[in-house]
């Protein structure tokens, strides 16, 4: 690895004392799955809300042999993903990829890749509000006590009120989960479609919330159960039509507006999954089969 050009930064931007502090928090987070470990979040060269928590976790675990993938709402080519990927290329000279299967660390904003994750991979989530009870109880002292006493009735009341108002649980993202039968955890604003992928995942899942200064984790093979009721079981979103580009079914789709006459298409939110399927010959209803001029 060429380290000669890194003189102006420490490897991976953070200083070593900060990395040690974050590493200690990560180890505690792994030992207490779903519990939010406070950490001394640093100022990063990007605004809060742009994934400073995820960036700090990635910087603390990243090594020169890693292959990094960054996604934003499933896409490798949106602003947040591109700039974070470029950041780590600059400060750590790390190899990057868009292929889920080739990555050792995947930093994600609000999606879990469609491709099944493997042992040895680490998924790092960018988390805006780590406290699932925060919108029900604004006081940190109270939510901390509620977690300590395992007092999660309020969360069930919220889901019940959804049912009373709408006839079904209307929470579609940041859907609360219970980890290993103990802590209720915010899975970050992923669509609830992704919740089942967290359950007994092969990959280690780390969550970093920079502004809120919390790190939490779900080790591999850990129970992650979405909260629900016996008569209103947890359900994931379903889509009427497959992806318009690659024809994939049972994946999470984004709506794309095509014109001002009501035209729209639904395509895979996971761009890597879609590209790989297109490359292997799968075709959806709106797939383009002509020659691509670049």
């Amino acid at each position, binding site marked *: 690895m060429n380290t000669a050009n890194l003189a102006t930064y420490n490897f991976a931007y953070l200083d*070593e004392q900060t990395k040690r502090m974050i*590493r200690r928090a990560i*180890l505690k987070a792994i030992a*207490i799955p779903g519990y939010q470990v406070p950490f001394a979040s640093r100022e990063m060269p990007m605004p809060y809300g742009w994934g400073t928590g995820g960036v700090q976790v990635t910087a603390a675990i990243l*090594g020169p042999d890693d292959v990094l993938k960054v996604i934003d709402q499933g896409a490798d080519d949106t602003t947040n993903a591109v700039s974070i990927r470029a950041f780590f290329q600059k400060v750590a000279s790390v190899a990057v990829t868009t292929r889920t299967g080739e990555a050792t660390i995947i930093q994600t904003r609000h999606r879990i890749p469609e491709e099944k994750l493997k042992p040895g991979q680490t998924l790092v989530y960018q988390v805006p509000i780590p406290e699932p009870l925060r919108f029900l109880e604004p006081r940190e002292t109270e939510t901390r006590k509620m977690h*300590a006493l395992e007092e999660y009735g309020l969360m069930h009341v919220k889901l019940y009120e959804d049912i009373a108002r709408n006839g079904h649980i209307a929470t579609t993202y940041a859907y609360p989960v219970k980890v*290993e039968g103990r802590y209720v955890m915010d899975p970050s604003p992923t669509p609830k479609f992704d919740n089942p992928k967290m359950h007994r995942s092969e990959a*280690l899942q780390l969550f970093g919330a920079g502004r809120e200064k919390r790190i939490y984790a779900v080790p*591999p093979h850990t129970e992650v159960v979405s909260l629900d009721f016996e008569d209103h079981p947890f359900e994931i979103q379903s889509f009427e039509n497959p992806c318009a580009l690659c024809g994939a079914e049972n994946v999470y789709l984004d709506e794309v507006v095509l014109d001002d006459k009501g035209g729209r298409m639904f395509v895979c939110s996971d761009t890597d999954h879609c590209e790989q399927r297109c490359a292997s010959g799968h075709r959806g209803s709106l797939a383009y089969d002509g020659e691509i001029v670049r």
Partner: protein
Amino acid sequence: MTIDTLVFTGGFREPVFQSQSVFRTLMDCMARPGTIGRIAPAVLPPPPLGAMAGAVALMLCDQDTPVWLTPGLAGSALPAWLAFHAGAPVTDDRQTARFAFIEKAALLPSLSLFAQGTQDYPDRSTTIVVEIEAVEGGRPFRLTGPGIRDEAIVAPRGLPDLFAQMWSENRRAFPCGVDLVLTAGEEIACLPRTTVVHPLEA
């Protein structure tokens, strides 16, 4: 070698990269209890502390982490070595220690004497680094819990005879409790507080 030489030598030659690779190995072992990590420790702490435990100390300890040492380690050149390389203070108080180090064949104190964390802040507990004779070849245990697909079998050699009982008491306090890092030679294994240890007949 004189005491001074022992104190000022034996740190990471490339702290950034060597501590990162030790950390990744440790993190993988903590996330997957029963996994045995192998890595060259790359440090040389003063005896009687072993190299792997020394690498864990330099990788995780600094001025923010009071360290508790067994009498055998406290009487060695180790406190000065930790002060020089990591800036970590040594404490006599197990309750304030963020890390504790137990050298090979030293008595493992009752786990409940160390900081357990509180119900509000279960992360404020001691992580205990225990040197054992070997990570294999001892009395077998079956492990279950987060990070383990079905079960894992480990047979660390050099743990106290009553270890399974000590650990089940620690396990009962969840989410409070201590986490263990076991080291031997170039090998490392972890027992986070979530892991359930079932003794097997040898």
